[in-house]
């Protein structure tokens, strides 16, 4: 394959065998490879051939390394811009050219990458800029950008610098002076670009011997394995690798993967098979094989660091962002303040602090006992975000990281693991690399600097120790020229191989095809795939090719036709040994834990509601004080809205005292009263909401209260005889040990017939009175009020539903009160038959529930399925394990 491709202008007839490379190098030859990976492999092979335990490292370079080395020999040679500088320059040119805001910063970044690649292809294939003219908007734009870039490189301060892509062309005139070797050995090239050909032709013409390396046809043993699923395939490979390594610990093994392989899954399976002990050491980070490591930006420490930086200099941060910061183990003083910080998080959740002002927090009492957190937050709030040169950002940021504890000031305070030290070292390299921006920009904004830092951290790979350095995992496309003892080729299905063509988007397709730009058309992709296939077959004496018939949601994949001639064998069973099961026993979870005399229980009607819903819930909440962590939500919470309405109504009725007073007011007077009530409510309830939210809520309150007062005008006349009256109800009534329930009744009215009407404001959903009846009441609030207020046969209880669009009363009474929504207990419309009997029944039921609580009943026995709906204790009560009536309720689609 290689041979025929050399038959162009460049004529490389000469070849030497792989075994002769060493002596050629000893005679002053230089081995140049297509890739740097191959150069490293050649060094290894040559050293391995040596009989000495220590030898000088052979001089083998990749093509690109060779050019760079040559360029350094010329002091006056322009220094190429580094990658970051070049990318920044392309972006500047593109941003300026496009001028508008139609492209996002990520799009500009992508366009810069495309432009840089397109320019490199143009240089390598000697494509003239004229070829791009009139070929569409994209290539027109590329032309403008190239011109813009050259203008920048031709003027100060960049005058005298160049792009890496220009290196070969710039070296060409001096190549003969620079290349001191008599012989160049080439290996791993599928084809040469016109620029490479030019260089080699010139050297050849000057008498330098150019030879390629002839690989002896290795007697390869090839097997093909068909697996049912990807998981099975990867498990098979991992198990085989394990067996090979056990037999030959130093064997060099490669797993070459196609694009259809889920590499992350492969890593997991390899980890599980080859490093089973790692499950016990989550902090001991190591790679199982020589493979692409994770980007630095995915490391916990760096993610937390970058997250913290996004909060630097901000006045207000979201709770979600702040909570992440609170739990960062790298933030100053975490070890000492860990539990306090968790407590703070819980409190903030409880108070629904969806947004937080850091400054406000620092000055508040909430941070008491957490001096380190305070100090770190102070450093963050003091962060200045005005534009600066990159070098200044770098230094200031390093200081900020010290001030917040991410970087320790001295090694003495450091108790960091190797993994953490590696993360920090690599991070510092990334941070330092950003000073390169100063060559191409003046001042950088904080946002831009942070984005660039993030990119640098994503581009950097964290070097981790490798458990099996002799095991490599790499893509098939990087296999050219490499040698191993054993090779596994994974995911070799017809979809993944041969490779598909991948033309460069900014260069016109006809131009790419005219110049035979690699991979630009299916035929070229096929040609390159055939080359790779040969390389795979030569890569090891034993090659195991596999594919899975099912990958993801794709089924019945075929093997690549390249491997079609090999005999197929089915994947042998590689099931992992079954886990030995441990014995279990059942245990009694229904032991009562009676309330002791000195145990203080603080509870209102919710306690009885919980007890009625499920004794376990009441026990957990009121005896063990275990509560669910809440989530914050944007805006104003329903409970806060409700309590504001309560406060406003308290104000209003304190003023009015009767319906007559209400009716005597004009509309304007009513407006004034409501507004005063709203202001008063906000004075009393200082919820942490923004001014704008407060303003909307005030408006809503006004509408709701106005509607409600109009509703109150409609009912029969009444006087208000009590407002927000406190009751203490001791239950059970006739027992020795009692449970004290604290109750605040919103209001008590008396109508002209003398009925007392106990009213509870409800701002939530409709409550049918069926929820107040029965043995275990769903909603025992009004029954408890009735008992506390000792209501009699002429009285009534009712919810006042103060809700936009749904105003009204929902209550029960013995005699008609004339209020719409109040149901008389006469046995009609499913109502109870006798009001007094109901009052008695309520007393009994609540007594019984209180008794259960006092007895310490904690069984998991919910009233019905609905009682479990919003409970949130399922993980604790384990009801799904013990069994529950099958849920066949509402349908979901």
């Amino acid at each position, binding site marked *: 394959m290689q041979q025929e491709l050399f038959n162009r202008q460049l004529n490389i007839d000469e070849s030497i065998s792989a075994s002769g490379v060493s002596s050629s190098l000893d005679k002053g030859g230089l081995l140049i490879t297509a890739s740097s990976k191959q150069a490293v492999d050649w060094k290894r092979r040559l050293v391995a051939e040596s009989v000495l335990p220590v030898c000088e490292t052979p001089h083998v370079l990749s093509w690109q390394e060779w050019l760079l080395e040559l360029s350094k020999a010329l002091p006056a040679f322009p220094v190429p811009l580094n990658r970051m500088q070049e990318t920044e320059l392309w972006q500047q040119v593109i941003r300026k050219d496009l001028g508008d805001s139609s492209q996002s910063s990520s799009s500009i970044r992508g366009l810069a990458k495309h432009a840089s690649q397109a320019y490199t292809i143009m240089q390598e294939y000697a494509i003239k800029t004229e070829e791009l003219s009139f070929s569409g908007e994209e290539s027109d734009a590329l032309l403008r950008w190239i011109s813009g870039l050259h203008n920048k490189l031709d003027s100060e301060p960049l005058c005298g610098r160049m792009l890496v892509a220009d290196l070969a062309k710039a070296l060409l005139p001096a190549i003969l002076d620079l290349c001191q070797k008599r012989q160049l050995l080439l290996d791993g090239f599928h084809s040469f670009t016109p620029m490479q050909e030019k260089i080699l032709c010139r050297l050849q013409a000057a008498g330098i011997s150019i030879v390629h390396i002839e690989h002896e046809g290795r007697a390869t043993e090839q097997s093909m394995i068909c697996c049912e699923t990807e998981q099975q395939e990867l498990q098979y490979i991992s198990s085989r690798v394990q067996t090979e390594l056990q037999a030959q610990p130093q064997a060099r093994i490669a797993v070459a993967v196609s694009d259809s392989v889920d590499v992350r899954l492969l890593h997991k399976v390899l980890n599980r098979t080859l490093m089973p002990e790692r499950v016990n050491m989550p902090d001991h980070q190591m790679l199982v094989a020589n493979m692409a490591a994770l980007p630095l930006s995915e490391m916990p420490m760096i993610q937390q660091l970058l997250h913290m930086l996004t909060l630097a200099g901000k006045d207000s941060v979201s709770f979600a962002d702040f909570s992440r910061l609170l739990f960062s183990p790298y933030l100053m003083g975490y070890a000492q303040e860990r539990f306090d910080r968790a407590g703070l998080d819980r409190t903030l959740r409880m108070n629904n602090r969806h947004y937080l002002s850091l400054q406000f927090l620092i000055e508040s009492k909430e941070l008491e006992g957490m001096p380190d957190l305070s100090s770190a937050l102070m450093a963050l709030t003091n962060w200045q975000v005005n534009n600066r040169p990159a070098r200044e950002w770098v230094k200031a940021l390093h200081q900020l990281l010290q001030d917040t504890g991410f970087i320790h000031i001295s090694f003495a305070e450091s108790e960091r693991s190797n993994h953490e030290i590696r993360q920090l070292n690599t991070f510092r390299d990334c941070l330092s690399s950003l000073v390169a921006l100063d060559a191409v920009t003046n001042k950088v904004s904080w946002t831009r600097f942070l984005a660039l830092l993030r990119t640098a951290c994503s581009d950097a790979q964290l070097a981790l120790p490798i458990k099996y350095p002799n095991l490599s995992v790499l893509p098939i496309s990087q296999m050219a020229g490499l040698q191993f003892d054993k090779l596994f080729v994974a995911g070799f299905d017809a979809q993944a191989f041969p490779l598909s063509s991948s033309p460069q988007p900014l260069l016109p397709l006809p131009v790419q095809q005219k110049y035979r730009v690699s991979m630009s058309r299916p035929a070229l992709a096929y040609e390159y795939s055939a080359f790779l296939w040969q390389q795979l077959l030569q890569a090891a004496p034993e090659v195991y090719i596999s594919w899975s018939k099912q990958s993801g949601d794709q089924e019945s994949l075929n093997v690549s036709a390249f491997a079609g001639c090999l005999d197929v064998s089915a994947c042998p069973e590689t099931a992992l040994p079954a886990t030995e099961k441990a014995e279990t026993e059942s245990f009694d979870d229904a032991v009562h834990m009676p309330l002791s005399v000195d145990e203080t229980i603080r509870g209102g009607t919710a306690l009885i509601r919980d007890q009625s819903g499920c004794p376990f819930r009441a026990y957990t909440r009121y005896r063990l004080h275990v509560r669910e962590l809440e989530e914050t939500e944007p805006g104003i919470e329903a409970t806060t809205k409700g309590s504001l309405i309560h406060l406003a109504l308290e104000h209003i009725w304190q003023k009015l005292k009767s319906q007559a007073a209400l009716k005597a007011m004009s509309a304007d007077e009513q407006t004034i009263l409501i507004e005063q009530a709203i202001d008063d409510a906000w004075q009393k309830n200082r919820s942490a909401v923004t001014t704008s939210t407060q303003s909307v809520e005030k408006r809503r309150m006004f509408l709701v209260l106005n509607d409600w007062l109009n509703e109150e005008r409609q009912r029969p006349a009444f006087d208000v005889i009590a407002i927000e009256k406190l009751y203490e109800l001791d239950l059970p009534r006739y027992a020795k040990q009692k449970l004290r329930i604290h109750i605040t009744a919103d209001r008590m009215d008396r109508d002209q017939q003398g009925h007392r009407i106990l009213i509870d404001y409800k701002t939530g959903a409709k409550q049918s009175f069926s929820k107040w009846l029965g043995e275990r009441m769903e909603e025992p609030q009004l029954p408890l009020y009735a008992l506390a207020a000792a209501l009699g046969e002429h009285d009534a209880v009712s919810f006042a539903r103060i809700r936009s669009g749904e105003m009204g009363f929902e209550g029960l009474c013995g005699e008609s009160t004339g209020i719409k929504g109040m149901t008389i207990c006469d046995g009609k419309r499913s109502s109870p038959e006798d009001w007094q009997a109901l009052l008695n029944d309520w007393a009994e039921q609540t007594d019984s529930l209180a008794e259960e609580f006092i007895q310490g009943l904690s069984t998991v026995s919910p009233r019905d399925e609905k009682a479990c709906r919003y409970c949130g204790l399922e993980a604790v009560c384990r009801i799904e394990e013990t*069994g529950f009536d099958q849920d066949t309720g509402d349908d979901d689609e």
Partner: protein
Amino acid sequence: MSESARRQARDPSISCLVQAPAGSGKTELLTQRILALLAIVEEPEEILALTFTRKAAAEMRGRVMQALNMQKPDEKQSHKMETWQLAQAVLQRSQTRQWNLSEHPGRLQLMTLDSLTFALARQLPLLSGLGEMPKPGENLFVLYREAAEAAINLLMRAEPEKAESLLLLLDHQMASLIKLVAEMLAKREQWLPTVAQNLVTSSARHDMQEILARLVLERVEQCNAMIPIEVKDQLPALLVFAAKQDDCTLDIKHLLDLQQWPAVNVESIALWQGIAAGLLKKTGGFPAPASINKARGFPAHAKAEKLQMQEMTALLSSITGLDELLADLIRLPAQPAYSDQQWSLLEALFELLVRANEQLQGLFARQGEADFTEVVLRALQALEDEAGTPSDLLMKLDYRIHHILVDEFQDTSSLQMRLLQNLTAGWQAGDGRHRTLFMVGDPMQSIYRFRKAEVGLFLQAAANEADLPWVESLKLERNFRSAPDIVAWVNRTFANVLPDDDDVVRGAVSHAMAASALHHTGRVKLHVQQGRDDIQEAAAIVALVQQEKSRAGLDGELQRIGILTRSRKQLHAIIPALQEAGIAFRAIKILPLATRPEIRLLRALSRALLHPADSQSWMAILRSVCCGLSSARLFPLLTADKRSVWQLIHDEQRIEAVDADTQLRLAFIKDALGPCVEVAGTVPVHDLLATAWHRLSLPELLDESAEQNVAAALELIESLDEGGQINFALLDERLEELFAAPDSSSEAAQVELLTMHGAKGLQWDVVILPGLGKTGRGADAPLLAFTDVPEAGGVKPLLAPKAEVRGKDAIYSLINSIEKSKYNYELARLLYVACTRAESGLFMYGHVSESTELAANGSFLKLLLADGLEGECFGAEIEICEAGEQIEATEKKALQRMLHIPELVTEQAEQEELETEYFWAGPEAAPVGNAVHEALQHAALIGVEQCGDSFMRSENTSMRNALMAEGLSGPMLETALSRCSRALEQALASDRGSWLLSARHPDARCEWALSVKQEGFIAHYVIDRSFIDEQGIRWVIDYKTASHEGGDLNAFLSEEESRHAPQLQRYTSILKKMQPDRPVKCALYFPMLDAWREIAQPGEDSPVMD
């Protein structure tokens, strides 16, 4: 008919749209069409076949490749022979044109529409505005929500009145507004162009009001056409009579002046609504004769009028569909116009939605991921010019596409249709090029509205009204799947259930008859229960499954059974019944993971480890199977103390208060989780949890399926990791979308449980449809009602904002009713899909109301048994049974916990050499160090003796270049360079430096690259400087360019010495291997300080310090 249609459809010279009902051999037809095209094209890439799923694309590719590799079939197998012949022609073509098609199947452009749009957008990075292709994100609701929240906050700051009006619309429930806006973002392709346009057009209100008037008029016209002439003559007088009655409670007082039948125009809408109100019950439908009473304006004494009204009502109630139409009339807006308040609300909404979209764009850019809607919108943007007409950019694509095939065309969305229109826009008839379009699908199987499929597009395309190339409309009829009895029943049933006529606007598709091609016997049976009883229904189904699974199917194998329901939850009752009966089954995407006990425990474990104050999660662990403390035992541990549970269980006093077994179990938890608590937050959450899970011995305590579920949840957790932490709200949301892994045993494959949506494309010997009597759950009302109304030459949008909370809005309802009818029509099609999966047996189960004996409105059973138990089900066998006694629920199981507390073995990490943390002396330190190293190397190469002024000059240039290459510039470059120069000058001038860099040493080396074989591996090293001194000692010197200012220099050097000693000792041992007899010494040289530290070999005394 079917065969000739097939022949035409295979013909590569014509464009066609093929309606291929269930079981009609569509895939074979597509394969043959592709082969036929391959035999005539210049390059395979000229053919583009589009599918909706990757699975379908892979299947299609497999079928084509299979055909290319097939052996010549028997002459009798005519359809196989046709395929073989077509394939042979393709192989010949491939050989002639060197396509290598058999080896390179990737050249077949068989892809999903999503992949195509992705490829288009990638190929046009500038025009699509996707310079950097985003990752296709599938769970982006969190981004929609974030964008919505940010947009509302911005609107509150910029235009508080608008924000307030929208928030008050929802009773100031910010979270609801955010959710509704987020939902709108998910379908922004529907409204974005309209909304963006309306923000700038002043005529928008007028345009939409015109459409509104037209819709209102349309309804009135429909109604008017259905009412018999005699009713028109007599009814006005009767209604006037009723309106005059004091006791009349109907809303018809405005009809008092009604002299005659009202005019058919928008202005008379109030009169029309009055008539409708006078005729219908408030709950809908016509009143029974007895209900025409004084409350309806006909008191007992007005006998004649009453009789007349009763007759008229009877006449009208015999007209099918009139009651619904009249009810619709009542709901129509009184004025076909937006009030100012409505319009300003709409404008506020537009403003908010546009801002939300802007925010979303920003988030997409920041996250580097986007939804497919975005990619399609961008691809279209690239393919269209500013006026929205297709540009000639298609030239840029790999090859000109000449033939397009679209599978499952009934699932096309309007956005995908636009793409198809663009792709075919340049296809001019008569330009000498042969191009074809082939679309195949079944509108009766269009059930993916939730994925934005618009069945109306199929109907438009079939009528050649879709702005696509002209196509021949063909229909396949033969059914190669079901028994004739089933085919006949489906024909009878769906001719009734599906509408009589197609309707593009409302997504109505009429039924197309099928003809059975098979001859085996089949059975259709409906099992109706009086009153709902899920447990009884499940028991009946289990009995049926037991009976049918032991029978042989057509192929001689045991019958395969599919149990299909409308919703997952409907299967939840059947699963325990099957388990109880010991029937193995495969429930595909049915059981939500979130409610599995092992997943609840995993969640609690993650919360407990990551949030020390989450007492509830800690309690869950203490009560779990791996600890098993009862509520009573937890009491002395947890009560009356606000500290975290972790702190409490470490409190000696509290521990002493509990019994020995509890102490033992607590000790286990502390030992198992202690190391995890230590590292929580510093390691990936997945790793942390895997360790904790393992240390708690949970794999040994749970069964294999639980372990599979845990693995799936851990995978999800891994994808949500945010630097060792996790957003639990998001985890909960995503867990809802995961389902327990199905039983993969071969035995379980015989009985499959799926949703009807999931069953599309599949078939079973026996199909069971449970729960047909149940209704679906209504969806939340969207913030903006939206529909497209066809107009001459296209469609026009109509929008209305949601009514105030718990209120109603007539315009909104009108628009929503169009969407609602699309929903209802699709529901009937879903039943069609379910029924047509059956090969030999179709068994249906449902319940009717115990009292009325009718099926619930909105249920499938209502479609099959419209008249309740009195009616029949299109000839299906019917079995009626009464709901039995509730079968006793199984007894509760006791809670389990581990019996023996396992011993924990602590793994020791392999000893690793301690990593050295950098001294950070600023960003320039490393470049300076490298440049100085290089300069010292140059100096040593020529020898210090030769290093004069010219050397310094040339080295200054080299060092400057080296520093620039490392990115330094400006003042930092100059400072760094002067540091380098100073260091070099200092080294050259000092005695130590001169000695080190002298050329007089024998065997001197600089940057000495050595390779070593160590235990079978090879390692490479580079030694800065080495030589043999006068005493014959081999020196190994490492340059250290760290500088030190102030403080204790000696301490600094000692620190450096201890940090770097292992490295130098390693060098020494390497050189000893090279020359075992040669004494070797090593040292650090600090050119910045001109300092020197000799490093002692292990076992030696420290050498004298310099």
